[in-house]
């Protein structure tokens, strides 16, 4: 990687740290300001006051809020995010165990979304102002409007219940422990519906932005020059239009990471996919504050890193951004 690019990334990372700090503090205060007593919840309905008191001490719940915040931040710097009240395990451990599943889901969805969206955009542009173009535009716009959980339900009804092509949920088939390749196949089979659901939303966005980017690029003088060199329509689109249209797509997709994470929460719940989203949902109802904070922080860090990666890719593709 070029030195310029590294310095660029370094600068942005440094800028992100104070932002994160602010977010952490605010979130902490917010969560602890909520009504409801975690100690009572944790100790259970039939707990004696003594037990509740014990729990309270154990989790520092009776100390002033500022002190609790201080302890939390200190621990966080050392990598200790507390113990999950519900799982009785370190928050880090619980989250990191599930993180790969969510990353797998989001990753595959993004790839699907970008590929399908790009294909849709190119087809749309190559057949400009025809029915194909209108159709694709229509589908893209619809994809953006349809609530993903409803789409999930529809897909389940049609493909899982109706056609029996895919399972209705989970990440693996229960009760089986399959070796190597068969395991991967199994996971993939469970992955398809959730990934497609998540992708549809993004795909519409990618298609729209890329189409706009392509049209914009095709309007430029260097496209005429390309034709003057003897290139045909497809060569022009692939060699000239697409490289220039990638930028708006990259920035949009990066910004969408936050939305994807939100979508993941719902999708994972609908499909019982064992990821961070499902974890997050459970933590709310269990008033599992440490886990809740942990999930939220990891998600935010993820978004920050995604934004950063987007900017880096942007800079790498368009040499004008950071080189001058």
């Amino acid at each position, binding site marked *: 990687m070029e030195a310029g690019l590294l310095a660029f990334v370094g600068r942005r990372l440094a800028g992100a740290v104070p932002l994160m700090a602010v977010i952490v503090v605010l979130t902490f205060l917010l969560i602890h300001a909520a009504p409801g007593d975690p100690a009572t919840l944790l100790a259970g309905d039939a707990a004696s006051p003594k037990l509740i008191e014990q729990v309270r001490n154990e989790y520092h719940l009776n100390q002033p809020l500022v002190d609790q915040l201080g302890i939390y931040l200190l621990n966080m710097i050392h990598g200790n995010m507390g113990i999950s009240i519900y799982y009785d395990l370190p928050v880090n451990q619980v989250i990191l165990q599930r993180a790969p599943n969510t990353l797998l889901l989001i990753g595959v969805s993004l790839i699907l979304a970008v590929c399908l969206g790009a294909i849709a955009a190119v087809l749309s542009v190559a057949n400009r102002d025809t029915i194909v173009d209108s159709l694709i535009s229509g589908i893209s716009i619809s994809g953006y*409007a349809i609530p993903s959980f409803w789409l999930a339900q529809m897909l389940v009804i049609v493909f899982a219940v109706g056609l029996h092509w895919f399972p*209705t949920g989970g990440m693996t088939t229960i009760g089986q422990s399959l070796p190597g390749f068969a395991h991967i196949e199994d996971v993939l089979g469970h992955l398809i519906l959730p990934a497609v659901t998540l992708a549809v939303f993004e795909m519409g966005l990618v298609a729209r932005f890329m189409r706009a980017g392509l049209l914009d690029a095709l309007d430029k003088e260097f496209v005429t020059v390309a034709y003057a060199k003897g290139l045909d329509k497809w060569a022009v689109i692939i060699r000239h239009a697409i490289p220039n249209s990638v930028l708006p797509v990259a920035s949009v997709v990066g910004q969408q990471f936050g939305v994807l994470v939100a979508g993941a929460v719902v999708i994972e719940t609908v499909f019982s996919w064992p990821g961070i989203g499902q974890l997050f949902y459970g933590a709310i109802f269990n008033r599992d504050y440490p886990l809740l904070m942990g999930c939220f922080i990891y998600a935010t860090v993820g978004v920050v890193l995604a934004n950063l990666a987007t900017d880096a890719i942007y800079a790498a593709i368009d040499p004008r951004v950071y080189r001058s």
Partner: protein
Amino acid sequence: MSTGLLAEDAPSVPTRGSVFRMRPRLGVSAALGVTIVGAAVAAALIGPLVYRVSPLALGASQLAPPSLTYPMGTDNLGRDILARFIYGARVSLAVGTLSALVAVGIGSFVGGLAGYLGGRADFFLMRVTEVFQVVPLFLLAIIIVALFGSGQANVILVIGILSWPATARIARGQVLVLREEEYILAAKLSGATWARILTKHMLPNVVPYLVVSASLQTGSAILVAAFLGFLGLGDPSQPSWGLLLNQGQLYLTSAWWLPVFPGLGLSLTILGLNLLGDGIGATLSQRQGTR
């Protein structure tokens, strides 16, 4: 320099289909948007008067598929889905519109002020919007609603307060452009206060963009409210579309009509609002002379 014919008359490239053919297409989508939104609003307002069935009344025939008596079927408690659908339209539209109003209200104020004052105020406000951009807002919404209560007022406030940055950016952008216009400078010279300048001169020019933003915000607010409802975080006493889908989740395999209709309603309404917002936005940029 060869300006004249080539520059002003034709795009400089052999693209298929001319620019001029695009105008009717934009009109179609805006028209479609208006139709859909109009239908939804009509259903919400007039529906209960036309279809006089209670959405809460329990009935004897449970999980009945769509038929002439029950056009959208019934749920597990025998309640008429069509009635719940119409009522749900009311709830979803109300929540969406009010949230959007909150968001646009806050956003236009903050954004307009930032754009107008510039300098440190602008810098500070931009940092704040940056925070909002980075935080996964939906997760925050879930947290707040779950911890602080899921009443309708709460939901509206939360969505509104978390969505204002988008409108703020638009308002700020417009104000920045307008600030340099001559008639503003003239007004300043003649001693008008900034309040008067903002309201009398700038506001009329910013309002169209705010309308676009409001339309899109309503769409997204309805979507977020539906998400919350689906997760069981909406108001349990009101049959919103999101809640209906939540209730339908249990019966995916047995009663398909429970999730299908509310979902369709949601999708179409949000789609309509997006089309409407896009349509108005496109007309605005055409009027300005940009392609």
